[in-house]
């Protein structure tokens, strides 16, 4: 799976600018699905028809990633920017960003009164090496993502945009290994999760699933002096109980628990106090959709170096494959 994850995490795709990552994913899933389509907002849907007597199940992983957008180009060619999704000024300082047209930028800071204080976005700028407005290769409204190559080190994988390309990888791998299922399964690679959860919500409206599961990253409580949380890297995929945006439907939650146990995959129960996933939006569509979330534990979420454990990822694929066999 290394190569798949490298390819997915290194591809450009901030919220609202998902063309490139969508086309990469489309090429991966098209040969494996019975039907592939794109929703009006740009979410990619790959359908696998079941053998009958099953449910219509929606699996969603978001293909967008956090990034930055240019708000102003000054007369010397420096760019001011605003975050796309939850970006911290702390991790922006000194970072490199890459625009869709390939241009590389470095994030710098104005002189600050107190260098020990975290800068505000207003104090930061992007330097693309331009000398003025005329030779600046990007303009207001252009978006960039953090630039960082994928690395595999032992069991751990480190990359930018693990949130949520690792979920996309789990879905692609599940589709690859899925032979027969009674269910009609809709693999959705959603857009704009990091900003407004728009992609999954609208895709769910079109699909009208009986049940929906988001596959996304979750935080961990296993690093030095971290916020307490009963999820650790390497202890298996996490089955969500609740987060800040939703409470998992008990039937969905128990279905995932039974699948993990039947497949012999170690798993953890998850309560996330901050943040949410596509499941928060999917559960509210139409008359309501029983929804849950299968999470990949991930350290350093929303930084350019997000870390996951390969066994957790493999476990997530096996849980989904098992679940899709169960009625």
């Amino acid at each position: 799976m290394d190569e798949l994850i490298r390819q997915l995490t290194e591809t450009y795709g901030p919220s609202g600018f998902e063309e490139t990552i969508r086309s990469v994913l489309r090429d991966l899933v098209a040969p494996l699905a019975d039907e592939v389509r794109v929703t009006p907002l740009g979410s990619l849907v790959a359908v696998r028809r079941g053998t009958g007597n099953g449910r219509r199940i929606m699996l969603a992983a978001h293909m967008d990633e956090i990034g930055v957008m240019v708000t102003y180009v000054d007369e010397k060619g420096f760019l001011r920017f605003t975050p796309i999704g939850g970006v911290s000024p702390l991790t922006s300082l000194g970072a490199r960003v890459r625009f869709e047209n390939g241009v590389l930028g470095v994030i710098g800071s104005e002189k600050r009164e107190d260098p020990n204080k975290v800068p505000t976005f207003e104090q930061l700028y992007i330097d693309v090496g331009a000398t003025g407005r005329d030779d600046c290769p990007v303009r207001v409204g252009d978006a960039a993502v953090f630039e960082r190559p994928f690395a595999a080190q032992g069991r751990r994988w480190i990359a930018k945009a693990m949130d949520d390309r690792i979920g996309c990888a789990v879905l692609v791998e599940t589709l690859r290994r899925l032979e027969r299922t009674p269910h009609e399964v809709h693999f959705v690679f959603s857009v704009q999760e990091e900003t407004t959860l728009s992609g999954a919500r609208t895709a769910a409206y079109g699909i009208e699933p009986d049940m929906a599961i988001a596959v996304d990253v979750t935080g961990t409580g296993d690093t030095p002096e971290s916020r307490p949380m009963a999820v650790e890297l390497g202890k298996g995929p996490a089955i969500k109980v609740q987060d800040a945006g939703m409470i998992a439907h008990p039937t969905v939650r128990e279905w995932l628990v039974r699948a993990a146990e039947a497949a012999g995959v170690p798993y953890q129960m998850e309560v996330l106090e901050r943040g949410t996933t596509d499941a928060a939006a999917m559960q509210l569509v139409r008359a309501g959709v029983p929804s849950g979330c299968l999470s990949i534990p991930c350290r350093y979420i929303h930084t350019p170096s997000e870390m996951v454990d390969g066994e957790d990822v493999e476990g997530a694929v096996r849980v989904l494959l098992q679940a899709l066999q169960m009625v």
Partner: protein
Amino acid sequence: MELLKELSEAFGPSGHEKEVRQVLRRALEGYADRVWVDALGNLHALREGTGPNRLRILLAAHMDEIGLMVVGHDESGGLRVRAIGGIDDRVLPGAQVWVGSDRIPGVIGLKPVHLLEQGEDEKVVKIDQLLVDIGAKGKEEAQKWAPLGTPMVFATRFEEVGALVKGKSFDDRAGCAVLAELVRGDRLPHDLYAVFTVQEEVGLRGARVAAYANRPDCAFALEGTIADDLPKKKDVSPTSELGKGPAITVMDRSFIAHRGLLRLLVETAEALGIPYQFKQPGIGGTDSGAIHLAREGIPCGTVAVPCRYIHSPVSLLSPTDLESTVRLMRESLARLTPDVLQM
């Protein structure tokens, strides 16, 4: 400008848009093929297209404006109020208001400068400390003239100021004027579902149901947006500027513009030499925030007339910007084909 004047002076805080709706109904008479009002009060006007492959295009401009509402009566006859929509407490003291759609004149009371205690002039007086004075003799009279729940708006007449015009509520009566012009102009290839929405300022409520009901293929929100041309020590990122043409949204707090529609707007403007600017990304929110989420998702864009001092008693805009906005929209809609919406 006659229509903008009438729209600007109309009484219409969120939830009380009747007068604005009446102005627009009259303005659209003879131009719209069908006009209807939905359960929430949105005014819909269909202008059918002439093309062979007609798209359903939703164009939204909100009728409602920010205002105040009576929440209590003092023994003195003064009215206690709270804000309808986003009002900056700093603009209230001393402002004049129209109380209720009968426009009872009112003044937001203010302690004279002579009586200020030390340091008091450096503090913002919060809305719950203010009284609206309608000259009532006491509590009973105040209750009779302006019962609990009576809405009010700033009392501002429309006027020309140099090459600009000033008036209240250009957010979003400017958008309403642009949209009315689009309906009244020559027919376009596509079916235009012009919707003058309610309750945008309190949560994009009208647009949400209008988008659901009309099942559009794509949509545009037409707005009066923030132009902050005040002198500043440092401005690392201007919002939009008066006189530089329509402001096009790439991303705000409520949505990200559809890239195909964004390209269409920019290419149309450049091809025809229509001035345009990008609104500073990352700030504000419009009806597009609600519309893009309707049903299976609707490709959306937002185009706005830059307006100074919005959400205050008076705003200023350039009629040239307004005309350019109408032209940019009209020409872009004429060039819109289904492949623009292809992802």
